[in-house]
């Protein structure tokens, strides 16, 4: 089974190194506007959330593409743009529910995460593992474990409060 990008925003420190290495590894250029992953921030609360393509099954970008330039690549587990076919109409940018399909105004091309052909640079450089690359069926169990930990902690807290009554 293909691997998937697993983002745990709670671990993100907001440094945006992922954006830098994404742009440099794809285009040889430093410019966050060229990055396929973007860290959205609420600085006043200390909240940072990396956003990237979810590689959807029923991908709206793929469905809306009038020239069928976007397809699913099952082997890599990704939704892929064929730039030889793409006409740059940006219909995909308009429908993406995550804002993960972007448009580069310098090269006049749409851009999205291609999982770096199996070696995502954002993952390679993220020391805190806010962005990780795991087996697709693992994502769910990792999230379950995290949630279970929170439930368990909440339970302990509740019983401690009860004991005080």
């Amino acid at each position, binding site marked *: 089974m293909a691997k998937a990008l697993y983002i745990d925003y709670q671990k993100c*420190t907001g*440094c*945006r190194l992922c954006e830098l*290495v994404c742009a440099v*590894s794809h285009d040889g*250029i*430093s410019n966050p506007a060229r990055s396929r992953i973007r860290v959205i921030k609420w*600085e006043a609360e200390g909240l940072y959330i990396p956003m990237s393509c979810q590689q959807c099954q029923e991908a709206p970008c793929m469905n809306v593409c009038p020239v069928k330039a976007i397809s699913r690549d099952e082997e890599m587990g990704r939704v892929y743009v064929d730039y030889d076919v793409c006409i740059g109409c940006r219909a995909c940018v308009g429908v993406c529910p995550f804002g993960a399909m972007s448009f580069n105004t310098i090269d006049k091309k749409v851009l999205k995460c291609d999982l770096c052909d199996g070696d995502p640079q954002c993952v390679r450089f993220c020391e805190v593992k806010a962005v990780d690359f795991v087996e697709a069926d693992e994502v769910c169990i990792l999230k379950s474990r995290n949630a279970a930990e929170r439930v368990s902690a909440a339970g302990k807290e509740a019983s401690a409060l009860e004991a005080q009554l």
Partner: protein
Amino acid sequence: MPLNRKIAYIDLTTGDIQTKPIPLEVRKKFLGGRGLDAYLLYNHTKKGCDPLGPENTLLISGGILTATCASATARTHIMAKSPLTGLLGSANMGGFFAPEMAWAGFHHLVIKGKAKNPVYIYIHNGEIEIRDARDIWGKTVPDSQWAIREDLGDQEVKSCVCGPAGENLVRFANVMTGIKNSGGRSGMGCVMGSKNLKAVATRGTMDIKIARPAEALEYNKRFIDQIVSAKVNQTQGVLGTPFIWGATNSWGGVRTRNFQYNQCEYADDIEPERIDEICEETMGPHHMTGCYGCQVHCRAQYKIPEGPYAGKYDEGPEYTSQGAFGGETDTPRALTVLVGNHLVNQFGMDNLETGSLISWAMELYELGIITSKQTDGVDLRFGNDEAVVEMIERICYRKGWLGDALADGGIPAAEKIGKNSFDYLIQVKGMSNLHSDERATPGLALNIATASRGSDHLRSRPAIDLYHLPQEVLKKIYGNPVPYDGPLSSEHTEYVGKPWQVFWHENCYMGVDCLGICKYHTTFLGATLPNFEDWSKVLYYNTGIEMTPEEIWEVARRCNMIERLFNLREGLTRDDLNKGDMLNHRYFDEPCRRGAIDVVGRKIDKEKFIKMIDELYEHKGLDEDGIPKPETLQSLSLENEPSHLL
């Protein structure tokens, strides 16, 4: 290309804006950041100019590597003549401002004049405009930034701002960006306030082409691996700079009650682990954050747990705040440190200067040199938490006689207070010392006495001197990139070889400041971290400029010499207690009363100390009065300054 980032000249009086490319010959002489700023300051100010007048020149810049594929190049540098010291004013901060300005097309800003009304400068993809800031004036540091985003309708805008302290011309006001990234020391926020300049905002999406992207990327991976494998950075990534507190305080290197003691007793509540606990309780297990592109993530996030400020979000506190609002004032309570840190971040005021001046006033109050009439009833005894918090606000808003006096900085305040108050003021060149106590470490004492922007631990501190490194390691570090075969001592209490170490670190720190790299990524707290040799590679991969480690060392020397020339032009004289390379008499007269066996009883031997200064001057190529020899200026190609290349 990083090299096509421009320089902009902005006149706030006339509204005139000019932009220019930065010639390669200038780059090779000064690189960028602090070094090029020093050149610009020397060239764009006149001798004796009023630091608060329109003729003072404010410089804001990124390093030559800012926003390239080199990690931790987030630093913004700010320079002007200092309203606190009357000498070189210089501040450096992390965050996200300088990279954004580089993507907007600029590396250097030269800001002159004074706006009629409050304004802010907006830099966007090669364009610069001056905008009305009357509605933003008066707002706190974070609120000003959010208001600018609203004004521009863009949540991605990054700004550096002055807070209420800068507006009120507090002489040690900061320039700040984000929640707590502070261009602190020497009052650069005060210069902004004096120009009616509330902020510089920027947003950029312009390409920075990397000269050799594949090599730059792979090198950066190795660089990061090296940085995060260093124990010192791993600890910083968990506890932040407060980790330094535990060791230094138990050892006896923290001045307490102004300068009466060198160790803070009953400090359990501000130990790094306790601060970390509060951060975790209020922000969860992942409560560390970092600057642009940095994997050290040394900045903690917290909410104030209780009291009148309960629930307020902030970042830090750094080691400096622990000393300023915990140790020096003898109020070692987490709440006081967290609230004090929060207030100075809101006001945009230097935490170190604020805490040091309050603790100085406390000593004067207990000695009867300051009366309760002068404090307007504030009971300024050591250990009074409420008094500390109250005084922070009084200084920012210049409330009461003492608040107003302290807002002008130590030396002017000492003149107003009179009597022998100056004798108790722990300062160099008019700038307060960090809360660390250097009486057991002559090398560190030499650093603060001779630092270019006044008493300072980030300009030449040989911090690794405390690690007692073996001779072969010292030789390897200090014998590169230029040979040194003089003596070196592993003993931090020694005087031998320290001048060379201070000279070496002065050039090392100037190097990172020109490149735009953070000091945690060089030989500052970690002995194994990268310096000149690595910079030569990273510079080549990212910009294509070929420079040897020795050539970068020469650039650093040249930039340090320009700073010296500026200070000399503004009246620096060697032994002057107000404006010279000299320490307060207490370093020589009062021995340490507490601490470990290698600390207690120690003080600085004045005779040996003066010999160290002589030796440092010799290394730097200065004569015995601290003035550069003609042959030194010639060898650094500085004989014709000011040369007005830019």
